[in-house]
């Protein structure tokens, strides 16, 4: 299993559930110390082997080398989980294009680079699962976080198109749409009853992988919430404070 953004809470929770099944892992993330800590944790929990690769995934020019090494070390990539991302500062991004562009680069452009390589790899292999952590925020443009939302919305469209291209080759392209999750990314906001733990999200992800789903809202009740949110007409939506 290849995990990009392997020190994210959702990635860690997902890998922990798989570690006991004697899986082999290749972890990629920016912070070397945290990578080592996560790798030790997975080995302790029963992972067959854990390789790590420290890099900033924003650097798309280094993706090819990293992915080639991952494929070589794992022998065969059966499952790739893309979980890196930033929430960004919406207000700062409203004032400064460079800040907005950085959010789009990390959440969308860098992911497109990974998906291009991995999509072709899986297509050639005639199988495998590409699981990508997107967000419910990509379903509508909300005034409170539309820059982040746009990066995830664009990602959703890209994933849909990629799926329509390579599903017929036996490749599962899974768009994961978590709602609010209690992680360091959301540590600064007050948590309400809708917040899920990373482990609840991990359970949803693994279930969706098992059932070869295309799109998974996690936890499941977000499918209903977003059905309602998507049903709000634009003329009403623009007057709401969401």
């Amino acid at each position, binding site marked *: 299993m290849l995990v990009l953004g392997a020190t994210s*809470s959702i990635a860690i929770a997902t890998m922990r559930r798989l570690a006991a099944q004697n899986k082999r892992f290749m972890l990629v993330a920016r912070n070397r110390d945290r990578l080592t*800590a*996560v790798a*030790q*944790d997975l080995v*302790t*929990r029963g992972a067959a082997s854990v390789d790590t690769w420290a890099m900033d995934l924003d650097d798309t020019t280094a993706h090819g080398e990293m992915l080639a090494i991952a494929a070589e070390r794992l022998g065969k990539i059966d499952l790739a989980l893309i979980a890196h991302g930033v929430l960004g500062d919406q207000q700062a991004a409203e004032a400064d294009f460079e800040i907005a562009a950085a959010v789009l680069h990390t959440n969308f452009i860098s992911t497109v680079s990974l998906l291009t390589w991995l999509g072709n790899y899986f297509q050639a292999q005639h199988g495998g699962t590409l699981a990508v952590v997107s967000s419910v925020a990509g379903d509508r443009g909300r005034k409170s976080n539309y820059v982040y939302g746009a990066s995830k919305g664009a990602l959703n469209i890209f994933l849909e198109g990629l799926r329509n291209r390579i599903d017929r080759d036996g490749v599962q392209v899974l768009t994961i749409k978590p709602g609010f999750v209690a992680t*360091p990314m959301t540590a600064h906001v007050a948590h309400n*009853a809708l917040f899920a733990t990373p482990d609840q999200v991990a359970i949803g992800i693994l279930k969706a992988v098992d059932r070869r789903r295309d799109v998974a809202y996690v936890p499941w009740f977000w499918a209903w919430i977003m059905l309602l949110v998507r049903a709000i007409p634009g003329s009403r939506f623009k007057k709401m404070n969401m």
Partner: protein
Amino acid sequence: MGRSYGDVCLLQNGTLLRTPNLDRLISFDAQTGLLRCEAGVTLAQILDFAVPRGWFLPVSPGTKYVTVGGAIANDIHGKNHHVAGTFGLHTPCFELIRSDGTQLVCSPTENPDVYSATIGGMGLTGFISWAEVQMRPIVSRRIRYHSTQFVGLEEFVALSQASTQEYSVAWIDCVAQGRNFARGIFIQGEHDENPGPLTPLAKPKLTLPFDLPAFALNRSSVGAFNTLYYHKQISKQRSGFTDYEPFFYPLDRILQWNRLYGEQGLLQFQCVLPWAINTMGMTQLLKAITTSGLASFLAVIKVFGDISSPGMMSFPMPGITLALDFPIRREVSFDLLDRLAAITAEFGGRMYPAKDACMSAAHFRQFYPQWEQFAVYIDPSFSSSFWQRVAGLG
């Protein structure tokens, strides 16, 4: 976790270091059962990991929702104190990060004085980053238990002293007066020595999604609960097998049970009284509670053993410990706590800082005369509301 009872972990106008993301395991030796993990790992997480592998916590408190760091800092104890001592006795090594950036590996041989000050040191000596926990082997999740009704403290002490089991504790009724005074149920048990299931049984937890109104918990409702609980056990004795979860963590089945106490919350009290020729001190404590009319849901009483802790400020001492909680009813509750503290002091006992919110400086210094030696090891950047109150730095 944010689930502490008192103010040992709080600091008014200070910065609180939360550790939920320090939840990684570092290593586990499947031969010896030695686990090394980060300090934010909870006992619940350790059990999820270790029980299926045939290992159990060396010491288990009444809830599994505590972190390893908190367990060391409060040098917690459990139902097996009389045979296993405190948690600190089973943490052969840990790392302490001081505010000047130094990282001290502490063990009985390496920085032994800091090791001793940090076990039960209420988090004041620095930041515990990781620790080793010596687990104990099990062959089954099941506990063989045996429970016995008793009336009166003498009967409780006799049952405790006669028990040969690894775990023992008693629930005691703090409402009943007259001929039912000090009635309770003595519960003992040990790990099933016959190989049995190790993997968990899926069972959803009950959660209280809201706070009950304060009037839900009054003398008659708790009295009724206690009578029911007492008579749940129809026969005087009962034996059987149970999963370890309900045996060790009955309240964890109701996540956020504290909300039963309503918005105003609850106060905890735990003290230990040393052995004396009779149980007069404990009788006085119970009388003070029953006559106060402040209902206590569950009061727990247990005999501590004489295994001493490596911790300088550790709470347990040989004798009888009583732990209970009651709702905050303004002055009445605090008046009662003052009475209980005075009785504890009179009989040479001590109170447990981890469960305290109002211990006076004078009482603290009487309970822990070694406090000045301990203060030398406090990290200059660390403090707590509790410490400011009892050390007179407030």
